[in-house]
């Protein structure tokens, strides 16, 4: 009778493994994906499918090259999540090669070359995104006007790069805001800025991601700290400026429900690997992302800012962690930074 001899604990939480966590994240993006598809057509869906294929392919290739058990590591679904988040952030007008470059870069350079899951200091999806944004600014900022979704066949044509996309493209609320900031008359004349409660169409996309995010919190996949931090940070800085000059500065609600705000707050900034890990650290991490998003949106050269903000804060995460250790039981105070 060979008895198993292992270290305690001898039991672990059922159905609690990394793969399951990641699958929950995937499920939680469903409302957002649906909203994007409803507003902008099948482009995003195509992007997602293709990105996932590329990501899994690259991951498998590199796992094999690194001599790892391919199917075991693929089952953590982390590559799928990376691809999904990247594709959700990209314009629905993206051609396949754009997706290919971004996803491959995210998986190979930003993740596997750093040692795979758990070792990457930066959010891989955002690394891919920023690479594309810098290299292909035109393709990356070409969105479709809401509710003017191209038909499936058109979407496929766009995806394959066989149609002139310009026929479909239109400005996003953030673009519009940037263009007309300070011009009260123009601002009031832009229907895209006046949706149900925020930018036209985008408020629903963001609401959908908010819904998915709340689901993740409910399932305890993520804690409230980072999303709350991001939203609070964004609001906290947008509110006073808007009160100060509502013509030049957009209102907080607009910011919260525009661009990748909710996607970023609930799905991207919460990537545990590259975020801060202590409770207070996460709050700070999130809040600073929120502030950076507003700063870059308002004063920067790019229409949206989530990717930059997240990457910048990824850089700061280890430091934040270092200064926000919790006070351990039986200790008078927490270790702070380099003290001791």
């Amino acid at each position, binding site marked *: 009778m060979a008895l198993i001899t*292992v*270290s305690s604990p001898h039991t672990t939480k059922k159905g609690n493994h990394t793969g399951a*966590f990641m699958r929950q994240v995937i499920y939680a993006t469903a409302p957002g994906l649906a909203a994007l598809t409803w507003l902008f057509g099948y482009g995003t869906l195509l992007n997602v499918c293709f990105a996932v294929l590329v990501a899994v392919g690259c991951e498998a290739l590199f796992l094999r090259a690194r001599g790892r058990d391919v199917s075991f590591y693929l089952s953590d679904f982390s590559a799928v999540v990376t691809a999904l988040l990247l594709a959700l952030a990209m314009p629905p007008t993206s051609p396949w090669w754009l997706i290919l470059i971004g996803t491959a870069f995210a998986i190979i350079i930003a993740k596997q070359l750093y040692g795979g*899951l758990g070792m990457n200091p930066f959010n891989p999806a955002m690394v891919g995104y920023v690479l594309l944004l810098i290299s292909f600014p035109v393709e990356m900022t070409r969105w479709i006007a809401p509710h003017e979704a191209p038909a499936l066949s058109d979407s496929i044509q766009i995806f394959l790069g066989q149609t002139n996309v310009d026929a479909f493209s239109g400005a996003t609320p953030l673009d519009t805001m940037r263009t007309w900031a300070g011009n009260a008359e123009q601002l009031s004349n832009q229907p895209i800025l006046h949706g149900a409660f925020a930018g036209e169409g985008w408020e629903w996309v963001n609401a959908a991601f908010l819904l998915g995010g709340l689901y993740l919190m409910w399932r305890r996949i993520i804690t409230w700290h980072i999303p709350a931090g991001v939203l609070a940070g964004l609001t906290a800085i947008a509110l006073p400026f808007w009160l100060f000059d509502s013509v030049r500065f957009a209102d907080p609600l607009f910011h919260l429900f525009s661009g990748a705000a909710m996607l970023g707050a609930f799905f991207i900034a919460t990537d*545990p*690997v590259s975020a801060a890990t202590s409770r207070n650290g996460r709050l700070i991490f999130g809040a600073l992302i929120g502030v950076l998003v507003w700063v870059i949106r308002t004063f920067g050269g790019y229409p949206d800012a989530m990717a930059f903000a997240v990457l910048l804060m990824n850089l700061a995460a280890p430091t934040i962690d270092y200064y926000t250790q919790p006070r351990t*039981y*039986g200790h008078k105070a927490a*270790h702070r930074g380099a003290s001791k």
Partner: protein
Amino acid sequence: MNAPLRNSRKIFDFHGGIHPPENKTQSSGQPIRSVSLPEELVLPLNMHIGAPAKPIVNVGDQVLKGQKIADANGMVSVPVHAPTSGTVVAIGPHPIQHPSGLDAPCIIIKPDGEERWTALHPITDWHKCSPSVLITRIREAGIAGMGGAGFPTAVKMSLKEGTKIQQLLLNAVECEPYITADDRLMRERADEIVRGIKILQYLVKPAETLVGIEDNKPYAIEAMRGAAQGTDIQIVVVPTKYPSGGEKQLIQLLTGKEVPSGGIPAQIGVVCQNIGSALAMHRAIEFGEPLISRITTVTGDALSNPGNIEVLLGTPVKHLLNESGVKENRLGRVVMGGPMMGFTLHTTNIPVVKTTNCIIAASTNELPEPAPEQPCIRCGSCAEVCPADLLPQQLYWYSKTSDLERAQQYNLMDCIECGACAYVCPSNIPLVQYYRFAKGEVRTQVAEQQKADNARLRFEARQARLEKEAAEKDARRKARLAASKQKAAGVAAPSVDVKALKAASLEASSAYKAAVKELKAAQADDANNVAELSAKVDALKAKADSAKAAVRDANSGAAAPAAPSVDLKALKSASLEASSAYKAAVKAVKAAEQNGDDNVAELRAQADSLKAKADTAKAAVRDANAGTAPATVAAADPVAELKKAVGEASSAYKAAVKAAKEAEESGAEDAAALRSQADQLKATADTLKAQLRDAKDAAPAATAPAPTSAPAAAPEKDHTAERAAKMKALKTSYNMLNKMLKDSNAALERAEREGSDNLDAQRARVEDVKRQADAARNELNDLVDQAKAGIRASGSDLKTMKLEAARTESALRKKMKELDEMKKSADEERINVLYQERDLLKREADIAANALKSALEEQGLTE
């Protein structure tokens, strides 16, 4: 059911915690039962935390139930008793309840089935006994914490004097899944538990007594509430959450206080005991029964008949499983303890011990093989549940990379190994295993450091002691020499010796001070060599005192004839030293009083004695000052004067010779004159020398009756010293004569070869020298014989020195032999210790040998 679960008290919360499936109903339903006697009872000598007990029975001995078979070994240790009557069939290594799976010494008893008890001595009126009597009884009954850790209960109950206990906590939380032993115990024996708690109350005198029970044990709560009716024992219901039953967590739950990191609950006025221990205390005191059995939950999927069993300690797990209907083919893993913190057994031969609260015979379905470890995704789930509020993911990272320093910075050592983090980790990382490993590494590091430190301290202390001893001996010898010299020659020049003595004394007192410092440090660290160190300190103090006394004696013995100012100076500095020591002591007393240290009284006594010393030192200075005035230069002494004259004359002669030579070389015309002057001077010197010799011969006779101011050393000692001096002189003159003989022989030969005409004169000269040399030789021999006889007669000093040398020699040889033997056993730690011991002995032997040699030399007895 809801009403009794409500509390009247505020319950605090602790961070984190988890809710694993409870799995308690399998075993909680049936009453406690017992099982048949096993073939053999295996009693590990180490069922508790601390030093293993020492067996006091032999193989073949008949033992009675409850008879002590192994005695506690040191403070943190408890005895072992025979759980039933029978025969000791073996004492030796056997697999035991240790996660390492290593064998350890056990006493194995074959029961005779008669269950004959040894005589028991109940203490019925325990509230009339002093707590120390009861604590001794608890210790003698072999009671060690029955909740899991197994810390000797008596040690926990022996509170430091003056400790005020606010809360006595009884841990009946039983938060681990599967375990229901305490639950059943409370349901069935609540009265007895309460009686045990009353004893505990008597011992620690708490302001309040709280029994913490998780709300998933409604029957137990009811039973305990019933039993506690009319007492001041409060039953407090805590919400079910793992690990509420951890001592630190329970304290936080019930009192809101936290045990300081690295501290013990008593520091915050809390004593925490398991209810099983309380019951055992009740049995030990009111029935006189030692701890020989306990309630163990035997459960798991692989058993058809799980439940709670009252098990005799030493019963092999296998026997319990067989009695509970184990299905061998289903058995996948056997856990001793709960599923969260227990450990797997590699064999079911392992006996049940005092800490065994549960045995889980799990099927592979129930507790499957752990899933493969995935990378940490830093999700932070672990940090969410950690009851110690650590960052397990960081600890994991640093443990994995063996970055122990960082791991400790993240408070690795505060991890209670509860396993909550590993339970929730989505990546199936066996986090606790990593922490255990890292903690082990840290402990090894610390232990090594400690060992090195201890060895160094021991070595240094020893070294200092030996040096001081040697210096002291030297000082004593010099003092004697000085005293006798002074007496013999009537010449007072003790200042050098006094100086040496003073140096020795200073050295001794600085060694003493260093030792005191070391002792204090050790006390602060609670090191276990405090007793040793304090003994050392005492020894050094005695030595320093005696050295000081020697200085004083020498000073007063010198009676300040030659250089009283130096002595006065010495006295003054001694006095200053004494008073500053006194001041320091006073300060120490004050500090100690402020800190509430318990050695205040001791320190104060020390300070008092220092003050007395300082006073005497001051008085001595006063006396010396008074004595200085009349102490003028001693009466002119012919020998000394002659010596001086001889010295002057011979140096004048030397100068003259030199001048003459120079003059000759430079062809000066007064060379001849100079030469004759030199010759004259030489003649003067020679006469003076002759006079001196005569005077010296006369001196002993002259000085012996002359009373000197020195409180003399014993007369025969003077004699010895005198003889020694004489011997020395004789030796030198003999050597000189020998040389002269050789020279004149050579001159004679040359003369013979050259056919010189004064051959006869030369020959006569040779003869003369030869005669002189022989005479010197004879005299020397006589003296040596005398000295030897003298030593034989009186010779305490040499004899003890010889003995000491011989003793250290043989000790060294013995140690070396031991070391050689130990080398075979490859017990590295022991070998290292032996090496150190050997080195120390070697040094000691060397010192003894040297001392002997120098003593012999001093007596002029070498070869």
